[in-house]
């Protein structure tokens, strides 16, 4: 008993004496991507609280150095440089694809492992000399496009119209969706673009309606995704309307109201965690996250985006523990960062909120389609699970 107490004391003193492990975090807490970045930031604040209560990782305190990039690539790159100079062991972030792409050369040059929270496949594929250091947690457009096309094929849809953001998000979706659709013999009959600040999409919608597609996919995120859908409804469109997982937040339902009733979208399974069958592997982890998040920020406040940040930590935490056994960050930071990277890549079968992560030398996303995507429909102003792919 006494010896146990002494051991704890020694450990605690050791932890006090050692400087905390710094983990750099960049998120878009302000700017256009703030609706994604804010839940991510909140998640790290929550994690920081939990960690200080539990006493850190492997007997070491952990400190998140949280920086905001204002949804701006230049700012994200500057933040990353700053974090690297501060001696962080790894970088998590950032929220958007363009800014994440901008951070890659910085972390690669400094040889710091990075886990991005942005969607695009370009961030981690192909795994070349620079992307060797980069991992990510959110599903790619490619993976989600596959879910949509699978659902369309199951419903016998033959012709589809597409309208998406006139930026990297909309373009990425157009590219992957068209490729997936073609492979399944579904014809994309119209491909239109609009800006998130646009106040009217009448022209684009009329062009889509003139081609009479059986379904329309809207490649947009957040509340600006409501406008095309409302215009479609106003012009009397009666076919199926698909959205992307970029709309999976409560604000979309609030602004959309009855106009978005019946919308189909692919989503990470956490969006409908309590509706998942008991055998679904990520259900328990997802419910745990939701319960913790809502306890701090209020009922109904969680979103799938914050869960990507949670997943990043779920991956990093065991990797940190294993890397601590291999190298000491106090003595040789470079060696520790390299060891940490190898340990992240060695992650196998890690159950997280959005699926099961198994990284490999070629795959730095590590999500399997079957576990990471479900189809959801808006019903009575709520998300309803309609299909899993397991």
């Amino acid at each position, binding site marked *: 008993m006494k010896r146990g107490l002494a051991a704890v004391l020694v450990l605690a003193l050791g932890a006090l004496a050692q400087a905390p492990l710094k983990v750099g975090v960049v998120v878009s807490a*302000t*700017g*256009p*991507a*703030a*609706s994604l970045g*804010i839940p991510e930031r909140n998640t790290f604040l929550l994690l920081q609280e939990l960690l200080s209560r539990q006493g850190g990782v492997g007997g070491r305190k952990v400190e998140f150095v949280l920086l905001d990039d204002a949804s701006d690539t230049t700012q994200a790159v500057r933040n990353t440089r700053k974090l690297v100079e501060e001696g962080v062991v790894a970088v998590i972030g950032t929220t958007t694809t363009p800014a994440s792409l901008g951070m890659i050369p910085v972390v690669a040059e400094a040889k710091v492992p990075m886990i991005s929270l942005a969607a695009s496949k370009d961030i981690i594929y192909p795994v070349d000399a620079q992307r060797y250091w980069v991992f990510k947690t959110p599903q790619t457009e490619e993976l989600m496009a596959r879910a949509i096309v699978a659902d369309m094929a199951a419903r016998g849809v033959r012709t589809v119209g597409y*309208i998406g953001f*006139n930026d990297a998000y909309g373009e990425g979706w157009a590219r992957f969706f068209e490729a997936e659709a073609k492979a399944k013999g579904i014809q994309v009959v119209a491909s*239109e*673009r*609009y*800006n*998130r*600040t*646009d*106040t*009217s*999409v*009448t*022209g*684009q919608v*009329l*062009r889509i309606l*003139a081609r009479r597609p059986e379904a329309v996919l809207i490649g947009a995120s*957040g*509340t*600006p995704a*409501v*406008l095309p859908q409302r215009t479609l409804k106003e*012009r009397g469109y009666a076919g199926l309307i698909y959205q992307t997982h970029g709309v999976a*937040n409560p*604000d979309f339902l*609030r*602004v959309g*109201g009855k106009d978005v009733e019946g919308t189909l979208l692919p989503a990470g399974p956490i969006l409908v965690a309590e509706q998942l069958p008991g055998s679904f592997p990520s259900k328990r982890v997802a419910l745990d996250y939701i319960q913790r998040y809502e306890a701090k920020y209020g009922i109904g406040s969680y979103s799938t985006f914050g869960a990507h940040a949670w997943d990043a930590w779920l991956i990093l935490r065991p990797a940190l523990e294993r890397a601590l056994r291999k190298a000491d960050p106090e003595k040789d930071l470079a060696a520790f960062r390299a060891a940490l990277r190898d340990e992240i890549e060695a992650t196998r079968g890690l159950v997280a909120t959005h699926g099961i992560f198994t990284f490999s030398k070629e795959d730095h996303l590590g999500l399997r389609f079957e576990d990471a995507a479900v189809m959801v429909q808006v019903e009575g102003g709520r998300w309803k699970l309609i299909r899993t792919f397991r």
Partner: protein
Amino acid sequence: MDATILGFLLLDGLQNGVVYGLLALALVLVFTVTRVILVPIGELMMFAPLSLVWLQSGKLPGTLGLALVLGVLWALLERGRGRALPLLGGAGLFLLFLLARGVAPLAYLAALLLVVYLGVSTYRVFFQPMREATVLALLIMAVGLHVAYQGLGLVFFGPEQFRPEPLLPGEATVGLSWQGVLVLAFALASVLALYLFFRRALFGKALLAAAENRLGARLCGIRPEEAGMVAFAIASLMAALSGLLLAPLINAAYFMGFMLGLKGFVAAILGGLLSYPVAFLGALLVAFFESFTSFYASAYKDALAFLLLVPALFYQSLRAKGVEE
């Protein structure tokens, strides 16, 4: 393209065009009287519906705090009896907001008055002290305010969009809701009101005189400071009203102002920042052009709309005499 699509596109262009037109008129008005290019007009427009949404859900919007801070600064800048006016106005506004929480008709009035108060105090605090500065310096100030107000909009109202209930629900004809008709009627009424104000009212004439020749107007007993305040008040009233009417149609968010303001600016440039009728027609032109490009080449819509600037600027450059006041 058939007749139905053409009709829809024209209606869509008209509805957007009158809004750009109102903003263009406000920009021309403010520019001629004060030489300020009012870049933050889009933000003033955005503050109105978002403050309304906040009031309707029973909360006090952050814009009220901003207005009160500017009001206090305004009072500090004034001397003597002039101090009472902004302070009384601010206190009245605060009381109105307390009363208007959750009371729909009062909330509209409160949102409107808030933006007018904000507009006038913005002029008094930021632009009037630099009234002798060059147009460029005033423009730099205006751009700075635009960035600051947009950022504050994000802080006050968050990143997502909001949609107030329309004043008049339902559709008038196919392709045009009653709310859209309301926007058109409002545009027509304000164009008429502005015309009457400038042609018939003594105050309007004084404003025109101040715009035409500042020194001459001063000699006739017109205070340019007062003229500037009135110009800002009218411009922010127009911005607030069009924002309130427009929000149910397009969803209000902190980022909505800039693009609308920019399109209004393009229209105002087409009118050389001087002519009201040409600015309004220019706005309609921009909107029709936009609605047709969104049908034919949606990816290039904004680029093409701003391309309209090139011939207008070319024309202006040929016409300009190269002397500033």
